[in-house]
């Protein structure tokens, strides 16, 4: 079973995103993964994520967005988290900006893990206490602890 708290690491977390627009935020989160040496081709990775963004609103409402893609630019399930106090427009159906942004990517052969991770995260983030905890967390480790407790 996929555990979100195990798929994310401290270095894959930004508590205060520098950019406030969708593409910038995605690039910021992707660069974390690139720095961790987890992305083989940054350009392809970004382009696969943005391709989905053009067709789907990955803002699931409640101040949450989960940009995601299946991509050949990585060999494993990748997860990054960014938090924006100001909020970012992810075209959520409820029209509200997203403050908690999780980026998920996986290669084609890990499709079932990828779908499972998306489902699990979406379910976790519907809980108000979970969102409140992530909004108030003061360190990357605290974010991981909150995710761990919720699983």
């Amino acid at each position, binding site marked *: 079973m996929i555990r979100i708290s195990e798929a994310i690491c401290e270095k894959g977390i930004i508590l205060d995103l520098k950019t406030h627009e969708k593409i910038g935020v995605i690039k910021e989160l992707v660069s974390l993964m690139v720095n961790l040496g987890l992305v083989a081709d940054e350009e392809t990775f970004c382009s696969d994520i943005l391709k989905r963004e053009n067709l789907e609103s990955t803002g699931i409402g409640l101040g949450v967005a989960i940009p995601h893609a299946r991509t050949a630019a990585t060999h494993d399930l990748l997860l990054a988290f960014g938090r924006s106090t100001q909020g970012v427009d992810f075209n959520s159906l409820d029209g509200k900006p997203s403050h908690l942004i999780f980026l998920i990517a996986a290669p084609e052969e890990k499709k079932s893990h990828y779908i499972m991770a998306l*489902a699990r995260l979406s379910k976790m983030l519907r809980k108000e206490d979970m969102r409140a905890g992530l909004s108030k967390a003061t360190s990357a480790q605290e974010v991981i602890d909150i995710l761990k407790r919720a699983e």
Partner: protein
Amino acid sequence: MFRRLLCYVEAGETGLDELEGLLDLASQLRCRVIVLAVIAPEGKKLTKKETQARETLEDRSWKFLYEIEDIAFEREIKISLMLEEGDVEDTIAAVVKSYNVDLCSTFSYKSIHAGSLLAKLSTVPLLFFNKEGP
């Protein structure tokens, strides 16, 4: 003519293969599809077993929604996913109203009474997909 098409689905009841009709229609209409799953609201006095069953249903519903999204993406269809809690018909009607849905559709005959839902939808048409034909 139709800009937003809502489709109510039930994980375990609606098959992925049944969605072809919906996706064909969305593709022809070039509209955004909002796929909605509804689960019962969290009661105050749920037993451990009931809580577990509810959690499993929510897990399954999200998984089903993302599987649909994946297929829609391959066909370049604009899609949004929603999972809400509440009474099925009331939730469908509320989503239709809140998100300016022009056409409502479903595969499920189990949780919906066509007459009562149509009354709640006012002027928005309701389309029932039937895999086996009329």
